[in-house]
C-alpha cells in the first residue's frame, strides 16, 4: 500500500515535470465545427498553457483514444451536445481513460445525448434529462436571457482555494442544463451551484415542482476520482464561448454588474481539471526511532514497545506548474492496529515537512501508519506504512531492581553458605 502511494506520488511528480517540459496532448471533441471559432478564446487559453490541442469533430469516424495498449492523449475535452461519440471512442472507453488516471473536461448543453449523460453518470455526475434548461426568473441575465429566463447569472461558487484561488467578484453567465451529484458522494462536488431561485425545467413551460432547484441544482460539477484523476462536467457549452467571455453581466433590473467572470471561472476549472491547481504531493514519508531499542534507526523493520518515534512526510501544493510547500494545521496521522491507538495532528515547518513525535503504545502487533488527507478540491493523500511493534526481548527487561536486592542477596548468601559448609564438610574429621 505504501509502495503504491509512493509510486503515485512519483507519477504525479513526473507529470509535473512533463508539464513544464514537453507538451501534453489534449484531444478536443467538438459537437459542431462552428464551436472551434465560437470558443476560440477558451481553446487559445488552453494552448497558451502549453497543451498541444488536437481538435476533432465528436462523431469523426476515425477517432481513436488508445492504440493497442497506450493512450494517445493525456487529457480529453468534450464540448458535446446531441451527437454521439464517433470512431472507436465510447463512454466505456472514456471511463477507462479516467480509471487509468487521466483527466476529462466534459461540457454539454440542453440537448445532450443519452450517451454523454450515461458517461457523466458513470463518472459520478447526473445530468438532468434532455431538453431541460436552468431557469431563474429572478437571477436571469437581462441581455441574453430576457425572454426565456434561461440564461442565468450564477455566483454560488464553491468555497475552495484549491479550485478558485481568488474570489470572483462578478457572477458567471450560464445558459445550459442542470446537474446534480449524489449526496453521499465522496468524489464529486459542485463548483458552481444554482441560486436559491434557480431551477431546471422546460423553458416556457410552467412548472410547479422542480426536481432540481436551488443550491442542489448544479451548474458545474467537479469530480476527483480515488486515483486522483479529475473530471469537470459543465452543464453549458455557452459559458465557455467567446461571447460569454466578453459578456457584460446585467441583472434583472438592467443593473450592470460588470464583466461576467466566465473567463476566469472557466480557466480555473479547466486548470483544476487538468491538475494545475489544488494538487497535493506527499513524498519522503519517513519514520525513525528517537529513543528505544535502536535509536536513530530510519524506517526500521520493527519498533519495540514504548519506543519514541518520529513520523514525517513532505507535502507540497502544486499549482500552475510550480510547487510550493503546503501549509495546513489539520493534517493528521494515525497509528492503527484494528483501532487507531494514536491519532495526532502533524506540525509543519513552513518548508512543507510535516512531522510529529509519538511514543508507540505498550502493545505489540502489526501496526500501520495511516495518513489520510482529503480536503475539498485538493487531491487525496492516502499513505500507509506497516511497522510491526515487538515486545521486549528476554534480555531487554530491567535489571537490578532495587526492590529485588534482598533476593539477590539471599541467593548470594546461599552460595556462600554452600561453599563454607562444603569446605567444612569435606575437611573436618569428625
Amino acid at each position, binding site marked *: 500500500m505504501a509502495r503504491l502511494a509512493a509510486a503515485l506520488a512519483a507519477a504525479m511528480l513526473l507529470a509535473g515535470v512533463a508539464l513544464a517540459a514537453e507538451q501534453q496532448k489534449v484531444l478536443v471533441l467538438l459537437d459542431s465545427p462552428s464551436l472551434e471559432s465560437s470558443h476560440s478564446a477558451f481553446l487559445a487559453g488552453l494552448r497558451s498553457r502549453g497543451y498541444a490541442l488536437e481538435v476533432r469533430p465528436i462523431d469523426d469516424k476515425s477517432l481513436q483514444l488508445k492504440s493497442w495498449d497506450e493512450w494517445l492523449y493525456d487529457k480529453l475535452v468534450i464540448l458535446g451536445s446531441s451527437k454521439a461519440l464517433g470512431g472507436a471512442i465510447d463512454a466505456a472507453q472514456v471511463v477507462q481513460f479516467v480509471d487509468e488516471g487521466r483527466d476529462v473536461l466534459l461540457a454539454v448543453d440542453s440537448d445532450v445525448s443519452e450517451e454523454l449523460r450515461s458517461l457523466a453518470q458513470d463518472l459520478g455526475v447526473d445530468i438532468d434529462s434532455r431538453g431541460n434548461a436552468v431557469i431563474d426568473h429572478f437571477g436571469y441575465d437581462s441581455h441574453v436571457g430576457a425572454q426565456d429566463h434561461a440564461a442565468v447569472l450564477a455566483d454560488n461558487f464553491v468555497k475552495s482555494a484549491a479550485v478558485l484561488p481568488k474570489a470572483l467578484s462578478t457572477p458567471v453567465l450560464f445558459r445550459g442544463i442542470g446537474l446534480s451529484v*449524489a449526496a453521499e458522494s465522496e468524489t464529486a462536488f459542485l463548483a458552481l451551484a444554482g441560486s436559491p431561485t434557480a431551477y431546471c425545467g422546460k423553458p416556457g413551460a410552467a412548472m410547479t415542482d422542480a426536481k432540481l432547484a436551488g443550491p442542489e441544482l448544479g451548474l458545474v460539477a467537479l469530480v476527483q476520482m480515488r486515483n486522483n484523476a479529475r473530471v469537470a462536467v459543465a452543464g453549458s457549452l455557452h459559458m465557455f464561448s467567446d461571447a460569454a467571455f466578453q459578456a457584460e453581466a446585467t441583472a434583472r433590473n438592467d443593473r450592470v454588474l460588470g464583466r461576467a467572470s466566465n473567463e476566469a471561472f472557466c480557466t480555473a476549472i479547466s486548470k483544476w481539471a487538468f491538475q494545475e491547481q489544488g494538487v497535493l504531493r506527499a513524498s519522503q514519508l519517513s519514520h525513525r526511532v528517537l529513543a528505544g531499542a535502536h535509536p536513530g534507526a530510519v524506517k526500521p523493520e520493527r519498533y519495540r514497545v514504548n519506543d519514541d518515534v518520529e513520523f514525517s512526510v513532505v507535502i507540497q501544493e502544486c499549482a500552475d506548474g510550480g510547487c510550493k510547500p503546503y501549509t495546513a494545521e489539520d493534517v493528521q496521522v494515525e497509528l492503527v492496529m484494528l483501532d487507531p491507538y494514536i491519532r495526532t495532528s502533524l506540525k509543519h515547518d513552513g518548508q512543507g515537512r510535516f512531522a510529529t513525535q509519538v511514543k508507540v503504545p505498550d502493545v505489540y502487533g502489526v501496526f500501520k501508519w495511516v495518513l489520510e488527507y482529503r480536503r475539498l478540491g485538493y487531491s487525496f493523500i492516502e499513505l500507509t506504512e506497516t511497522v510491526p511493534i*515487538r515486545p521486549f526481548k*528476554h534480555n531487554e527487561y530491567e535489571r537490578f531492581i532495587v526492590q529485588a536486592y534482598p533476593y539477590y542477596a539471599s541467593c548470594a548468601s546461599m552460595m556462600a553458605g554452600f561453599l563454607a559448609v562444603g569446605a567444612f564438610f569435606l575437611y573436618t574429621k569428625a
Partner: protein
Amino acid sequence: MAGPAETAGQTAQHKAYGNVLTGFALLCICVLASSVRLFSVIKYESVIHEFDPYFNYRVTRFLSEKGFYETWDFFDSFTWYPLGRVVGGTMYPGLIFTAGTIWNVLQKLNIPIHVQEVCVFTAPLFSAFCAIATYLFMKEVRGQGAGLASAAIIAVVPSYISRSVAGSYDLEAVAIFALVFVFYLYVKTLNTGSLAWATALFFGYLYMVASWGGYSFIANLLPIHCLACIVFGRVSSRLYIAYAPWVILGALAAANIPVIGFNAVLMSEHMASFFVFGLLHAALAIEYIRDMLPPRAYSAAKKLVLTFGTTALAVVLALVVSYVAASPTFGWTGRSLSLLDPTYASKYIPIIASVSEHQPPSWSSYFTDLHIASLLAPAGLLLCFRPLTDASMFLLLYGVTAVYFSGVMVRLMLVLAPAACCLAGLALSEVTSYLSASLVAAQRAQAGAGDAEKKAKAPSETDGSAAGKKDKAAGSSAAAAAKQAAKKAAKKGGSGGGPLGWVSGPWKPVPKDVAIVGLVLVFLGLSMFYRHSVYVAGEMYSAPSIVLQSRRADGGVKVFDDFREAYAWLSHNTDPDAKVASWWDYGYQTTAMANRTVIVDNNTWNNTHIATVGRAMASPERKAWQIFRSLDVEYVFVVFGGFIGYPSDDINKFLWMVRIGGGVFPEIKEPHYLGADGNYRVDEQAGKALVDSLMYKLSYYRFADCGPMFGAQRGFDRVRNAVIAKQDFELKYFEEVFTSEHWMMRIYRVLDKPNRDARLRNPRRAKLGRRAPSKRRQPSGAPSK
C-alpha cells in the same frame, strides 16, 4: 546380584550372555521402531505432515537461519495479523531446539542436509530413544525381561506410531520419549536415592517441560505417587530425595520456560506438588522425632505435630481454595478442566471441542491404538501388586491415571500408550518366564538329576531356539525373560523382593504340554499384534493429509496435490506482504508453504479473532467484505471437496465456524444455518443464512458450471451427496483468482473500493434513456468496420 549359591564365574558368564543378548535385542527393537515409521516416506515422499508440524517446521527454519537467541525472542508478524504472535513466549521450544541442534551438529560434521529432512526424521529417531527409555524404566521397575518386553511392544504400538511417523514433526514426537525418560529417572532416583540422579531428573524434567504441555501430567502424577507412599507408610529418605528436590528444581525449570512462566506456581495444575511437598515434610518430621524421642514424649509430640500440621494444612487449603475460587475457571486451564469435568469443553469451549482429537474415544479405538497391550494391561496392573514396591506402585498409578484421562480425550491415548505397553510387557515377560521356566523344570524332571547350571542354561537355549522362529524383538524379549526366570529359579527362591512374585513361596510348574501351548498362544498373540501394528502404520497413520491418495478402480493410485499447488500459487502470484484469510486449520500451512501473512492459525489462543473470521465466513457477501477489508485481507481461500468428494472441507467444518463465531458475535445463530428439519444440509431445504453466507458462495461459485461431473446431475455435491440449493450466482465483492486442479482449494481476491462513485443513490437523478451500445473494438482500438 550374584546368587549366594553359585560360583561368581558362572554367574558372570550368564550375565555376560544375558547382556549381549539384551543389547542385541534392544538394537533390533530400535531399528524396528524407527523403520516401521518410514512408511509415509516410502509411500508418499518426505514431507511435513498435517497442520501443527508446519509451524514447528517454520520456526525450525527460522532457527537454522537466525540462531537460538533470535528464536527465543521470535516475534512473528506473519500470523494473527494484525495482532502478531510472540512465538518465543508461546511455544514449547523443546522439539524445535532439538531438531535445530541436530541440524547444527550435522552441519558441523559437514553433512549438508536440509532442515526439512531433519524435521521429517526426528520423530522416528526419538521413537527409538523412547523404546530404550522404556526398557530402562521397566528395568528399574521389574528387571530386564519386563524391560525388553515393554520396549518390544512400545516400539510398534499404533497410538504412538500415529503421532510419530516420519514427517509428523509434532511436539508429541519427542515429548513421549521425554515423558518415559523422566519416569525412568524418577524411578531410578527412587531406587538409588542419590542426589546425582535427582539432578539428572531435574534435567530430564526440564526437557519435558520444554517439550510439551503434557508435563502437567507428570507434575500431578509424581505428587500422587508420593502421597500414596506417605499413606502407605513407605516414607523413606530415597523418596524424599526423589521427590522434594524435584518439586523445587522442577518449579524453577518450568518457570524458566517463557510459555509457562509464573503459571508454574500460580496455576492449580501445579498446586498439588507443593501441597504434597509440605505433607512429606510433616511425615518426615514425625519419623525423625520418633527416632529422637523416647516413646512417651514421642506420643505427646506427635499429638502436637499432628494438631499443628492439620491446622497449618487447613490454613493452606483455605488460602488455596480462596485463590482458586477467585479465578473464574478455578485457576485451571480449559483443557485440563475438561479432563476433570469431561463435559466441560463441549459445553463452554467450542474451540476445544471442535478439535477432533479432543473427543472421547469409544472402545474400538483402544483396540485399534493399543491392540494386545490393552488386553494384557489388566494383568500387568495386578502383577504390580506382587510384590508392591515403590517403583511398581508408581507404574500402577501411572497406568490408572493415564487410562482414566485417555477415556476423556483421544489424544491422551498417547500418554496411556507407554503405560499400557509397560504393563503389558510386565505381564508378557512374567507369563513367558513362568511358562519357559516350567519347561525347564519339565526337562530337568526328564533329564533326572541336574543342578543349577543346567537349569540356568537350558531355558536360554530352548527358548532361544524358539526365538529363531519368532519375530525377533518378541522372541528375544521372551528369551531374556526366560533367562531371568532361570536365574531366579536357580536362586532357590531367594529374596522375595525379586521381580517374579511366584518364585517366593512354594510353586509348581505347569506340565510341559500346557507350557508349550501357552507359549504358542503368546507367540500367536504377539505376531497378531505386530501384524496389526505394521498394517496400521502402513495404511492408516502414514498419510500426510497435505497430499492425498486414492485408489482407482484399476488399482492404480491417484494423487491429489491441490494444497501444495494452491500454496505455491499464492507464494508466486501474490504480493509478499499480502494478507491471506482462511479458516484457522490452514493458517500454519499458509505461513509455512505460501509464506504469506495469515489472520488466524492453528494456535488458537485468541478466540475473538478466530470468531471474527468465522463471522465473516458466515456473513453475507457485503458484510464479509467489510470485515475482511477492516482486516486488510487481500486474499481469501476456502477448501472445497464437493468436486472430488473430499469430506473434511470447509463446508463440513462450517458449523464450527458458526458456533465459534456465534459464541462471540450473537447475531450469528446456528439454527439459521440449519435446514427446515434441523439438519445441516446444502440442498433445497438448506437454511437461508447458509445459502447467503460467504462460505457457501466461495465454495459453490461456478460450481454448477464445471460440467456434468462423472455423469452426476448439475450442481451435484459429491461430499454431501446432494444437489446444491443455489447454483448460479455472481460475486460482487470477491473475484476468483485461482482454483486448484481438483477444486479442492479456491482462492479469491477481495476487491478494492471502486475508483468512481458511480450510480450512488441520488433522488434528483433523471432517468436515463436507452444507452448507446458500447462498441466492439479491434485490439488496436480502431473501430471494427
